[in-house]
């Protein structure tokens, strides 16, 4: 069973369509050909490497290696979260790392142990692709959450401080900014749960069906993964805000200006 292998030559044939696209871009003076070329090359090189080390991981299937791989993935995820949210890596790395790690580990192992019911919890075949899907989706929500939270307070700093003076409570003054940030972080996933399957088949299902699973199996996996993604996102977004508070504010609850990369003075 499994999908028919693609010949390297036939895969290369698919690149033929790039030629008219490059030509049209050129004629329309879109000036994106260089970016496009870089993107395509990067995709091929990166996926090539992933292929090589996944084969390696799958071959050894060592719990230690697999766990180490996941930790590295989380670290890289942290880095890209902080880079996209204009927040300082050095100060916030640890809080974001923990807020990804805790929900991720709980959901992932529940998924493997209870839902899929596999014996080896560190089985590379499940651990790595599912871990990757969870992480990839959490990235967006943590970026949106942290970004909106801190930029909202920065933008309305006077109102925020005035709320502290009226309520004499840090948490109460933070609430509106947290609410706004949290809703914008998790709403897209709820929306995609509501429309999934109507327009396009999710990538994971497509993969499973091509890989030889019957549609019902693929659909059960898809439901399980959507729920897992939502849970991980939900808790890691909340935790990322909570864990970052200690670094984000000084001892008098005033926003710490040096957590932002570009401080406008």
């Amino acid at each position: 069973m499994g999908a028919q292998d693609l010949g390297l030559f036939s895969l290369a044939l698919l690149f033929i369509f790039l030629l008219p696209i490059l030509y049209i871009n050129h004629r329309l003076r879109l000036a994106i050909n260089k970016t496009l070329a870089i993107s395509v090359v990067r995709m091929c090189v990166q996926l090539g490497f992933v292929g090589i080390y996944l084969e390696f991981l799958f071959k050894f299937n060592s719990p230690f290696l697999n766990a180490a791989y996941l930790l590295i993935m989380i670290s890289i995820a942290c880095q890209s979260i902080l880079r996209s949210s204009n927040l300082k890596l050095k100060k916030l790395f640890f809080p974001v790392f923990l807020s990804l790690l805790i929900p991720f580990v709980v959901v992932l192992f529940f998924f493997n142990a209870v839902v899929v019911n596999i014996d080896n919890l560190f089985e590379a075949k499940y651990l790595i692709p599912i871990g990757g899907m969870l992480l990839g989706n959490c990235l967006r929500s943590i970026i949106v959450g942290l970004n909106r939270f801190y930029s909202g307070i920065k933008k309305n700093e006077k109102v925020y401080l005035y709320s502290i003076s009226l309520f004499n409570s840090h948490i109460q003054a933070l609430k509106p900014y947290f609410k706004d940030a949290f809703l914008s972080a998790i709403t897209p996933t709820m929306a995609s749960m509501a429309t999934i399957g109507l327009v396009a088949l999710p990538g994971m299902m497509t993969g499973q069906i091509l890989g030889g699973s019957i549609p019902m199996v693929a659909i059960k996996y898809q439901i399980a993964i959507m729920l897992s993604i939502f849970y991980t996102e939900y808790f890691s977004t909340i935790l990322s805000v909570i864990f970052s508070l200690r670094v984000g504010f000084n001892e008098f609850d005033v926003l710490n200006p040096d957590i932002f990369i570009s401080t406008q003075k």
Partner: protein
Amino acid sequence: MIQFNSAYLTRKDKKIFDNFNLSIKKNEKILIQGKSGIGKTTFFKVLLGFESLDKGRATFNGWGISKGHIKDIRGSIFYLSQDIDLKNELVRNLLEEIREHNPASLLHKDLQKKMAFLELSIKILDQNVKELSGGERQRLGLLIGFLLDRPVWLLDEPTSALDDPMKKKIADFIAGRDRTIVIISHDEVWKQHPDIKIERWV
């Protein structure tokens, strides 16, 4: 009640406090005068812990402005900021939220009487803070202060958006309170008041 001893504070290369000293006793009423940028608002912000001194000591009720005391200090101060930076919310909900977090305050007691005194219509309770006019917002800020009735009031331009009879009424009322009150204002009514001590900063 409030004491600054050899305080120094520099912001963006500008010396705001340069060996600044001040002492305000309990229930004193002080009007601070001085040109803008001299640090009047910063003085309030240091007391509230929103800004910190570079050097020197500020105390409130004998407490240093420190992590351990900041909640007690903030709970004792009613601060009216110049722009009355209330968050945008239905006025009724805002008052309710303030009451919830200030269980000891008089909030909601005498609400209607105090609103009538400030000539605020009951209708504003069902409006959003953003929909209020400048004068209404200023009076809403004062209303919150009257209802909270904390021991120390720091008022930054509390009457700038009000008409003359209203300024007079409020100045008389505030000057008669048994509270420690510090006012920053350019309005004449405060200067003329016999119970208010003037502190000129140059």
